[in-house]
């Protein structure tokens, strides 16, 4: 690996011959991985490709099979332990952040000072100093005495980074750090990563969002099915090339937009307003049409969707379905009228993780599987089997817990749950958050098929390419108002992006 492009530097970390087996399945096959001092390195791969396993081996959570060679900072190890890893400056910012919401920001950042087997007295002043210093280094002002639960996800992310810096980090892993951040928060995070890198800290970035990966990284390591695909310089790399490397398939995206002007109108919204959230919104969606709604977080997209779904009450304006004015007093009315809403936060709101696939799928359509007033297991099985087949969900048994499925398959179950209610209008709110590239393509295949069958679809996303490639018309919302309309057939992706991020 002496021919790493553009470098003559000795790697900070290098792993060779890494093998790992879980329950007979090879999670990692003879993988090598190298990180240079101070570089930003992207670790890319689909869910299940072995990224997390590799990170856990480097941080000592797992022990690789015999024969592994780990060289870090001039030392050679056959495996790491969490203590050695932390002591020698390897830090991980986990996707779930692993923070303590009830404790103060200072305690969260300086938590290392209270680690150790034997009890000592806590020095709160030292903790506070450490925290303030770490935040200063990131150029962020937070009240270190406030409990962490008072802060937003983006701010907690910063606390997690500050915590990683306390331990004199030389190598920081960030696992999906931007999954729940808005564009501007992501931009800020990218700034922080750049400044870390400039100060000599190597950052390994794991992300599904290829655009930011390409923006931030120097080099790219791609894993697929537990094996190394290759190491590439990011310069000259395109999103579709990375996708191809990750999946082994070619997903050249095509604009799917089509004209649906002759189809009947399903949903008509006129001058809908709710003070402080959205104002004077008018649009319609036709049968078979996919309407894309994009805009920055806080533009009022989700609030608008919740108003259409009967969960927020608009102050003024009207909504009609198939020409008939409707007014919902709760989302039960909306579901009855044929509106389905797939929530943004699929994992916490959309699906009940420990319950079975079948139970999750039928939860919104229990009326349909009744027989003589009681729920019928037979009808349930049939309904579930039908949707599983229709959407091509890969499952073991219907009785398996939803939590056993991959992100993409979970998303399909969440969609199927709403399709089982036989809706006329389907609202998809950020349907691909936390879903990897291959599975995303699958979800949009489904969306296209549903539209073809005559369903009216509203697709909400803050990732402009998603609406550009998959919607027939794109509505841009900003500060609660309609900021513009785009027709993907006659505009470019850059036109919309320029408007949204202006």
């Amino acid at each position, binding site marked *: 690996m002496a021919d790493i492009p553009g470098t003559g530097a000795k790697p900070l970390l290098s792993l060779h011959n890494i093998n790992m087996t879980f329950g007979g399945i090879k999670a990692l096959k003879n993988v090598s991985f190298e990180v240079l001092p101070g570089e930003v390195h992207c670790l890319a791969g689909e869910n299940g490709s072995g990224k997390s396993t590799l990170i856990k081996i480097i941080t000592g*959570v797992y022990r690789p099979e015999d024969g592994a060679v780990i060289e870090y900072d001039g030392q050679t190890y056959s495996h790491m332990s969490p*203590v050695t890893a932390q002591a020698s400056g390897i830090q991980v910012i986990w996707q779930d952040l692993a923070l*303590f*919401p009830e404790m103060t920001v200072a305690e969260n950042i300086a938590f290392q000072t209270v680690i150790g*087997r034997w009890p000592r007295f*806590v020095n709160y002043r030292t903790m506070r100093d450490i925290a303030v210093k770490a935040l200063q280094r990131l150029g962020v002002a937070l009240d270190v005495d406030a409990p962490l639960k008072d802060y937003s996800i983006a701010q907690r992310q910063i606390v997690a980074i500050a915590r990683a810096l306390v331990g004199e980090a030389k190598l920081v892993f960030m696992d999906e750090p931007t999954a729940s951040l808005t564009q501007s928060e992501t931009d800020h995070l990218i700034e922080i990563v750049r400044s870390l890198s400039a100060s000599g800290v190597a950052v390994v970035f794991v992300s599904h969002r290829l655009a930011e990966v390409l923006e931030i990284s120097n080099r790219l390591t791609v894993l697929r099915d537990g094996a190394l695909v290759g190491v590439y310089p990011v310069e000259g790399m395109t999103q579709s090339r990375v996708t191809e490397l990750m999946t082994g398939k070619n997903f050249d995206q095509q604009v799917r937009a089509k004209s649906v002007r002759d189809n009947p109108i399903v949903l008509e919204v006129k001058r809908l307003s709710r003070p402080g959230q959205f104002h004077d919104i008018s649009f319609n969606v036709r049968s078979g049409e996919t309407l894309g709604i994009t805009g920055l977080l806080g533009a009022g997209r989700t609030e608008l969707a919740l108003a259409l779904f009967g969960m927020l009450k608009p102050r003024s304006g009207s909504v009609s379905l198939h020409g008939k004015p409707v007014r919902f007093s709760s989302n039960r009315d909306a579901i009855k009228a044929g509106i389905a809403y797939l929530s943004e936060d699929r994992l916490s709101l959309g699906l009940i993780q420990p319950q079975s696939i079948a139970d999750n799928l039928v939860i919104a359509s229990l009326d349909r599987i009744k027989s003589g007033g009681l729920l019928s297991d037979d009808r349930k099985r049939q309904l579930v089997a039908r949707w599983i087949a229709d959407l091509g969900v890969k499952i073991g048994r219907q009785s398996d817990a939803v939590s056993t499925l991959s992100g993409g398959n979970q998303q399909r179950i969440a969609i199927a749950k709403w399709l089982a209610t036989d809706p006329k209008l389907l609202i998809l709110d950020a349907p691909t958050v936390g879903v990897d590239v291959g599975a995303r393509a699958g979800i949009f295949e489904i969306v296209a098929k549903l539209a073809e069958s005559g369903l009216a679809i509203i697709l909400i996303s803050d990732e402009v390419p998603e609406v550009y490639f998959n919607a027939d018309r794109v509505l841009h919302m900003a500060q609660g108002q309609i900021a513009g309309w785009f027709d993907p057939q006659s505009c470019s992706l850059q036109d919309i992006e320029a408007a949204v991020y202006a």
Partner: protein
Amino acid sequence: MRKLVQSHATEFALLAVIAAICVVLSLTTDSFFSLGNAFDLLNTSSVNIIFAVGLLVVLIAGGIDISFAVAASVVQYVTALILGYIGGGGWISGLLIAGSLGILLGAFNAFLIHRFRIISIVATIATFNIYFGLLMFFTQGVSIYDLPDWLTERVVLFEHEMADGTWAEITLPVLVMVICVVATWLFTTRTTTGRQLYAFGDNPEGARRFGINIGAMQFIAFGWLGMMAGIAGLIQAHYAQEVVPNALYGRELDVLAAVVLGGARLGGGKGSVLGCVLGVLLIAITQNGLNLLGVSPFAFKMIVGAIILIAITLSNTSIEKLLPFMRGARR
């Protein structure tokens, strides 16, 4: 000041409720507002406060314990037997024996929870039955009245003669209680182990990733409660001047209610010693007041239940809404 109120919303809500009740009782009864009554309240609440600060530590660590009150009964009984066997003993040996037996019984809970991954409420409901069943089986429900003199003798630490000639007294249980409260406060807020317990209760997976020894956390939390329960058991025997096997049966729910009232969360990671003490005091003052007002004791439980609901609603949800200046102070 605003910050202090904000970060201790539960404690301030409890103080406000206690103050309100005290004002009402002082105006409606002759005897509530007196030194004698205040000292009596402290003397009678001591055992519950010792239990409460012990239970608090388990709640902070994300667990729950139903068995500690009957464990204290077991400790009482066994300690009394051992003291008889060694021929008397004294406060120091008594507290050491009771504390160690308590730690042992607490450690058994921790062992079940950690080793067999039984959730704490199930494990301790089981040991609640086991401890109490064993106690009743072996004692046949027979009480011990023949206790060493040092244990049954009242120890008055401070006394003051009142205008009407009665004596207001602070007795030994209050001193022991204060020591337990201060020790628990120091332990939970000022030691690294205490903060690890908070972190473990708040986010067990996060704590594990930091290399915190999860098993040790369980043993420390349940051991601490066991020690407090043992001490409380001995003090209760001292206060009652007898050991009755089922004297503490049912106490666990009263204490649990008081601790939760004090702001501890059943999910872990939250709760303060001050809140815990105020929770016990609020219930004690209410009962005391109802007594002085001549309310039927049969109505106590009902009223205490209502107070718990009101106070928890106040402290959980509306404190910020009730005090508008606190809103929007932070984002």
